[in-house]
């Protein structure tokens, strides 16, 4: 059984963090019992600072007192430890694995900064640039989906895999931005495959349940935007 024996699993995170969502989705798919320790917005707990001295960021998975940092490293770790529970998150073929890893890095490198860039952009020009980058990267991901999914509902095929988690965890924030800005990032005309994929992902009992409600994220975004405008960012 997952979380077998006396092994203790804790996840340091925050409800709204899409990076934390990645770890939660993986843990839930693998039916791992864990304690969720919520970090308070704006502060960092002693445990977080001790467990992730390099980046001081969530998520951190603590398994039997050993910390694992970086969301996609955590996802791989979960896949490798709880190997006999739930479906494999990484594909079996080594080239497919390389593709999943490549596009997950791309998402973090190009898509995510553009997505949050739209919220933080100080000028209309910067905002437009971020929007263009976000849309362009989704277009590439649309093509990648076509090749990697091989006609199945997910990047991972029949079941949710590593790359699905990498992108799917951001669906809450994608929807929040769509609502706040009145345009579609995932557009049925331009990215039909990803639109279908997004629906499948959100309808998945396990993964979909982790994605926060769009209204709550929109509320949070407005609070953060107000704070951001009124004070210099302090991270």
């Amino acid at each position: 059984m997952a979380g077998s024996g006396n092994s203790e699993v804790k996840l340091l995170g925050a409800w709204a963090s899409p990076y934390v969502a990645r770890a939660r989705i993986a843990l839930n798919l693998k039916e791992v019992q864990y304690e969720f320790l919520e970090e308070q917005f704006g502060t960092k707990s002693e445990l977080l600072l001790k467990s992730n001295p390099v980046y001081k960021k969530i998520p951190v998975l603590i398994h039997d007192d050993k910390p694992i940092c970086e969301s996609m490293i955590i996802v791989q770790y979960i896949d490798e430890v709880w190997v006999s529970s739930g479906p494999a998150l990484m594909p079996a073929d080594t080239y497919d694995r390389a593709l999943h890893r490549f596009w997950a890095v791309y998402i973090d490198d190009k898509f995510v900064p553009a997505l949050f860039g739209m919220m933080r952009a100080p000028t209309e020009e910067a905002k437009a640039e971020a929007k263009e980058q976000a849309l362009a990267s989704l277009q590439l991901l649309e093509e990648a989906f076509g090749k990697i999914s091989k006609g199945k509902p997910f990047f991972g095929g029949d079941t949710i895999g590593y790359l699905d988690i990498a992108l799917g965890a951001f669906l809450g924030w994608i929807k929040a931005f769509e609502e706040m800005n009145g345009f579609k990032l995932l557009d049925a005309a331009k990215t039909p495959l990803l639109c279908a994929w997004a629906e499948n992902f959100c309808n998945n009992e396990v993964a979909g349940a982790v994605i926060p409600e769009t209204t709550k994220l929109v509320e949070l975004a407005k609070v953060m935007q107000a704070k951001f405008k009124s004070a210099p960012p302090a991270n």
Partner: protein
Amino acid sequence: MEEAKGEEVTLFGFWSSPFVHRVIWALNIKKIKYKYVEEDLCDKSALLLEHNPVYKKVPVLVYNGIAIADSLIIVEFIEETWKENSIMPQDPYEKAVARFWATAAGDGLWQFFITEGKEREEALTSVINNFELLEKELIGKNFFGGDRIGYLDISVGWISYGVPIFEEITEFKIITEQKFPLLHAWMEAFSNSEFVKDTLPPREKLSERYRNVWEAIMQKKN
């Protein structure tokens, strides 16, 4: 042994790229025969652009016609495709630690190199904090991989020549024997290892390249 299968491995690279060096070291340890194609980064070949349309960068590994990009992803692909002479730790926790440091170890070093004043001080603090933690990973070991060179050694191996060159150009020593005895010893052991020794261009040529890059960047700022 590997080439008997009729497999074709081609590496597109650039002589001074630390990312390319990672792949060369992995191929060497795995004893994989490969063809090397030197790219002119100012005039990239059509093949490179075809194989890596997303980033248009080296290294790219082409194996039996399929292309893999991103140095660390290529190294894991090599590890998983050729089973002998394993470079990854077996234990999932050790794998996670290795994957973490593969990217984190270099944090701040480039900023240290190309900035001045307060920015450089901040970068240096971050570098020293990371190196202190990295030093601990070497306790009781010759290499990060234990007795033999492994994934993390390969991933951070560029430090063995990159940091001394940065130190020379900025005239500031970071990795001293006193402050980081294990890292210092590791740099030497790594550079002298059979899989690394003859892979690098002459130090003077590398130094010159880095100095040219540094001067160009510094000039742009001032």
